[in-house]
């Protein structure tokens, strides 16, 4: 039976993490291909419902990655996102979804290596957790 390949959706902030991911590619650092990247202008733009919808429509894990505190291009986007996704993670845990499925990270434009490590770590963990069946939207 082919090994379970998780689907991971990553919301990367355009100024830092997306550039970091780009750097990972240009420096030919290898990282698992399970991640599907969605570029957003700031982590502050990511509506917590995006996370829930992603989990319901096939994602087994979601990563929100943005600039380090203090480096946000819009000054406070990452601070606001930090509060939001901590609350959403705890709410999902309260309802019975493993908190490891919603991760957040600070990756700046120069941390290509860190991006690869983060993606590898998340993919390994979610592989251990297995597919997220219960949360799925009813298939038609």
């Amino acid at each position: 039976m082919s090994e379970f390949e998780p689907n991971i959706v990553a919301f990367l902030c355009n100024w830092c993490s997306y550039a970091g991911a780009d750097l990972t590619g240009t420096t030919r650092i290898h990282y698992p291909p399970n991640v599907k990247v969605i570029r957003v202008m700031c982590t502050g733009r990511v509506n917590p419902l995006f996370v829930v919808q992603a989990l319901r429509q096939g994602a087994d894990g979601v990563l929100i990655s943005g600039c380090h505190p203090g480096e946000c291009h819009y000054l406070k986007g990452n601070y606001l996102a930090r509060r939001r996704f901590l609350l959403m993670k705890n709410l999902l845990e309260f309802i019975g979804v493993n908190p490891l499925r919603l991760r957040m990270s600070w990756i700046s434009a120069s941390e290509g290596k860190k991006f690869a490590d983060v993606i590898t770590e998340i993919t390994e963990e979610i592989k251990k957790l297995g597919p997220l069946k219960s949360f799925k939207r009813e298939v038609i």
Partner: protein
Amino acid sequence: MNIQKLRDEAKRALNRKEVKYLIGYQKGSYGFRVSPAFIESKEEVDRLIFSPLCALSLANYLMLEEKLPQSEDKKKAKATKIALFARGCDSRALNQIIAEKGIPRDELYIIGIPCKGVIDLKKIEARFPGVVDFAEVVEKNGNYIVTIKEQIFEVPKEELVADTCKVCQYPTPLIYNKLIGDNVEGYPANYDEIHSLEEKTLEEKWDFWQKEFDSCIRCYACKNSCPLCYCEGCVLDKLTPQWVRRSVDSSENLLFHITRTFHLAGRCISCGECERVCPMDIPLMKLNRKMEKEVKELFNYEAGKDPVSQTLLTTFNLEDPEDFIL
């Protein structure tokens, strides 16, 4: 609670030129029911009551779309204020709505009533089934004196009081123009009921909520009875894009309730209306009080403490917890 004092206060409020009308409680249409009352003139003031049966939140009516038509003299006087009774939880709702610029403070004339807890209608109707003629309930040192026609019963408060009131921290109103009755001491914060669910395994929690959301019929009563659920274009009603589908199954209901709970994080003031009105008895307050606990522990923030403070998700602290961040 001295009813006459309450009615005099209502009369004084209605006498003020700028008060359009007053929202209060009146006897319901049968048994233990209580219904909201919209009083325009001094003569109707004698309909007003206040007793442990007054469970519904009047703050909800401020944000429902259309208000009562104004009588001629009030229109001439360009009356702008709405007067209403507010218990502890209602006053916190008013604080939160004012802080969120939902309604300006000077459009409200608030008569605060310290509240010793309200009765859960389902419990009292189970205890005294089939009561159609009017019944009175008064609280006297820890017991409820229930009079139905001529019979009088004494029931320990613990048996009939609503669950949310058992852990109420702010029974005395925090914002008011006038206060009737003396202050009431709140209970210390108590989240045992939440801890007991938190300790369960993920599967147990999932099964518990899956069964609850499976019986939800999406009647929107929890949304429409919540004083804090007053957004103009609610995301749950949106069609383009459609976040929550109209088909009623446990998966869509789950998204419906996650959205509502999250949008009330740091805003919900635990009045317990959503749980009270749910026809399918879904324990919605568990979700809201979980968020209340998280918000208190993580960000040391409480909803509706004052009408000026910044709302939770529009601010941040540099030292907000970030141990979960890679």
